[in-house]
């Protein structure tokens, strides 16, 4: 016999949890009391439950393992919603444990009660409310299994107080036996051979690669396929690093801010082979204009991703590793010389590029290029969301899977800082860099303390443009340059915001350098382009937590851009 609380910790140990990110409270206090006794689980205390989930999420993205977090009931649980939704959108395996009021109190509006399963149902892959302590061993095993198999995703276990206190002798089951959960791994042999013959007969094939390839550990097989059949490759934001961008067949990222060559190739190819991508609207733009000349084949583990937003001529449902393994021997070795050359010409004609700052300020794109140069391409980049995220996608040559972590599907500002912390904990020897904005940095700023107290050598790079830049860009492009709610400096706020620049306040608040120092991190503000590389070098060579604030050109825009709902012919290349 052991208590439910004990059983939770045993369950975590059994499934191999090495790190738990958690925040305590009255309704989960029993489990924390047991956690102390664990010899194998490292505990990390973030300063906000959203941080806990993002850390566990990025830990999972960086390592390929399941991330674990634990929070209390009510406000603790509701604080996880953004984190769970972030992980759910990007298919990240997580197990989140939440405290709950006793089963006898549920429904009574008890202190710190929230209907956590109800609230998180649509932002998790699955969730459990454990009503009987005897179910707990099974639920622990099931949650872990569901999180990491099929299309991975977050699973929440809601643990009422009386279940934590109750006692059970039920052992952990060895096998998973839910009849309703049987992801198909094999891929239909007939579909696979039809795909092979489509590939063998295509003149202008294109591999369109999504995050699923990284999740499935199939990057090597993908490269084999691309080289064997001489097929150009474009990746989504989620798949950056899945195929080396220095490979001549790489057309880099596609989509709204993708490389023009990639979007051209999508519109001109005669066979689009989607591998673990889900045709997000940030990739497709106007659906009817997407790959108009192509047959579309879609390999995915998630049947519901197929045909959801874009027509599909040939579906293959299965695990990418299994499917690609079966596919490869059936694909003929061949060359598509003229097609590949055409793609390379597009790439040469329109590389990612930017104009210098009119005032000689640091260009944010330049900072990203220097991260690449100074780290020798070795940095793991965890981004926040906004312009900096897109620059990091465009101006760093991504060659390694699990080295570009970003909230792609939900686009969650505030992911970057807790994310880089989770990544660094999972990959101790790795240079881990966070690229964030002056907006995003303030969304989960409190987590800086975690990096410092755990002596994590993370480098937090703030691209400070004084704006919520991404939105400011849209306002300039599509809303008559009216900067409603996007100015972060004292000057230049619109009338309705009632902020008059006052001489006794600095033009810009907060002072990130002082703030970083208050948390015990080393910090520096950089305003001149020639100081960028030396500052990066100093920070990268030093094991301390570093916050580098780059004062960058305020008006830089992410280009090229296919406006929302548009197609490649609508691409905006230049804007000022």
């Amino acid at each position, binding site marked *: 016999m052991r208590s439910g609380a004990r059983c939770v910790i045993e369950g975590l140990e059994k499934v191999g949890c090495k790190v738990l990110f958690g925040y305590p409270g009255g309704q989960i206090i029993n489990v924390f009391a047991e956690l102390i006794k664990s010899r194998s689980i490292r505990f990390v205390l973030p300063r906000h439950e959203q941080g806990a989930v993002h850390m566990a999420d990025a830990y999972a993205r960086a390592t390929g393992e399941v991330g674990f977090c634990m929070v209390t009931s009510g406000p603790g649980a509701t604080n996880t919603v953004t984190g769970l939704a972030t992980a759910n959108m990007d298919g990240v395996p997580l197990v989140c444990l939440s405290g709950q009021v006793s089963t006898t109190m549920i429904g009574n509006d008890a202190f710190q009660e929230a209907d956590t399963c109800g609230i998180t149902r649509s932002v998790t892959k699955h969730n459990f409310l454990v009503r009987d302590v005897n179910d707990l061993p099974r639920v622990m095993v099931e949650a872990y299994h569901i999180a990491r198999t099929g299309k991975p995703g977050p699973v929440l276990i809601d643990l009422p107080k009386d279940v934590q206190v109750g006692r059970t002798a039920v052992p952990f089951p060895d096998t998973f036996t*839910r009849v309703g959960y049987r992801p198909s791994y094999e891929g239909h042999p007939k579909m696979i051979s039809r795909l092979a013959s489509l590939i063998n007969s295509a003149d202008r094939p294109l591999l369109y690669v999504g995050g699923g390839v990284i999740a499935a550990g199939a990057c090597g097989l993908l490269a084999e396929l691309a080289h064997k059949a001489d097929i150009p490759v474009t990746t989504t934001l989620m798949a950056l690093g899945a195929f080396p961008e220095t490979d001549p067949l790489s057309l880099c990222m596609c989509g709204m801010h993708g490389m023009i060559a990639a979007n051209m190739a999508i519109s001109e190819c005669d066979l689009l082979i989607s591998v673990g991508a889900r045709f997000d609207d940030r990739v497709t733009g106007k659906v009817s204009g997407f790959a108009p000349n192509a047959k579309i084949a879609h390999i995915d583990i998630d049947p519901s991703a197929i045909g959801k937003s874009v027509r599909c001529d040939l579906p293959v449902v299965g695990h990418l590793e299994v499917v690609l393994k079966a596919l490869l021997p059936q694909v003929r070795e061949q060359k598509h010389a003229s097609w590949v050359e055409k793609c390379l010409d597009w790439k040469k004609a329109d590389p990612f590029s930017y104009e210098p700052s009119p005032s000689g300020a640091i260009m944010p794109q330049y900072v990203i290029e220097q991260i690449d140069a100074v780290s020798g391409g070795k940095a793991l980049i965890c981004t926040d969301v906004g312009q900096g995220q897109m620059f990091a996608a465009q101006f760093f040559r991504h060659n390694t899977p699990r080295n570009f972590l970003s909230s792609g599907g939900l686009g969650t500002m505030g992911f970057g800082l807790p994310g880089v912390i989770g990544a660094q904990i999972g990959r101790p020897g790795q240079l881990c860099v966070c690229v964030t904005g002056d907006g995003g940095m303030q969304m989960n700023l409190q987590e800086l303390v975690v990096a410092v107290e755990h002596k994590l050598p993370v480098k937090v790079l703030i691209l400070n443009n004084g704006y919520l830049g991404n939105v400011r860009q849209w306002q300039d492009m599509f809303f008559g340059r009216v900067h409603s709610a996007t100015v972060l400096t004292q000057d230049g706020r619109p009338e309705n915001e009632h902020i008059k620049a006052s001489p006794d306040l600095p033009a810009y608040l907060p002072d990130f350098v002082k703030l970083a120092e208050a948390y015990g991190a080393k910090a520096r503000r950089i305003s001149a382009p020639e100081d960028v590389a030396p500052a990066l070098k100093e920070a990268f060579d030093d094991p301390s937590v570093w916050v580098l604030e780059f004062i960058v050109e305020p008006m830089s825009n992410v280009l090229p851009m296919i406006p929302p709902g548009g197609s490649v012919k609508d691409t905006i290349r230049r804007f000022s």
Partner: protein
Amino acid sequence: MKTADNNPMKQKHIINATVENQPGVLSRIVGLFSGRGYNIDTLNVGPCADPMFSRMTITVIGDEHVLEQVTKQLNKLVDVIKVNDLTSQRYLERELILLDVAAPRNKRAEIMEIVALFKASIIGVRENFVTIQFVGSREDVEDFLRVLRPYSIMDLSRSGLLAVSRGAD
């Protein structure tokens, strides 16, 4: 591509879903429909022959594309065991309705006659109205209601559709 309101291909589909008989499953399914903007027309839940499972009969309005997504999304739920779109198969369907119809003395005989013709039954009689029970297919129910409409229907309760598959064609 989702619910195209003016899409002529929009039609009613009957889906039978076998699910685990557990608390929370109904809300998961209803939540899936509302969250993804699918329209439920009717929904029925009851235990299966094996009480471990429940059977849900759901009628959905939408085109082929919506239906395909509904089926796939339902299948993705961990507690859904099996999803069966009956529309493409042979199946039997029934709906039960209960209705109060105004029945003053001078109309009573006519109403009784309609009830008899449709093999419905009168399960309650009051001074001014009768309560009628009728079981039939969607079409039967519509026919029955059309015929009774001139007689002032005071109250109407419909069970929604139940259906069983008779196997593939």
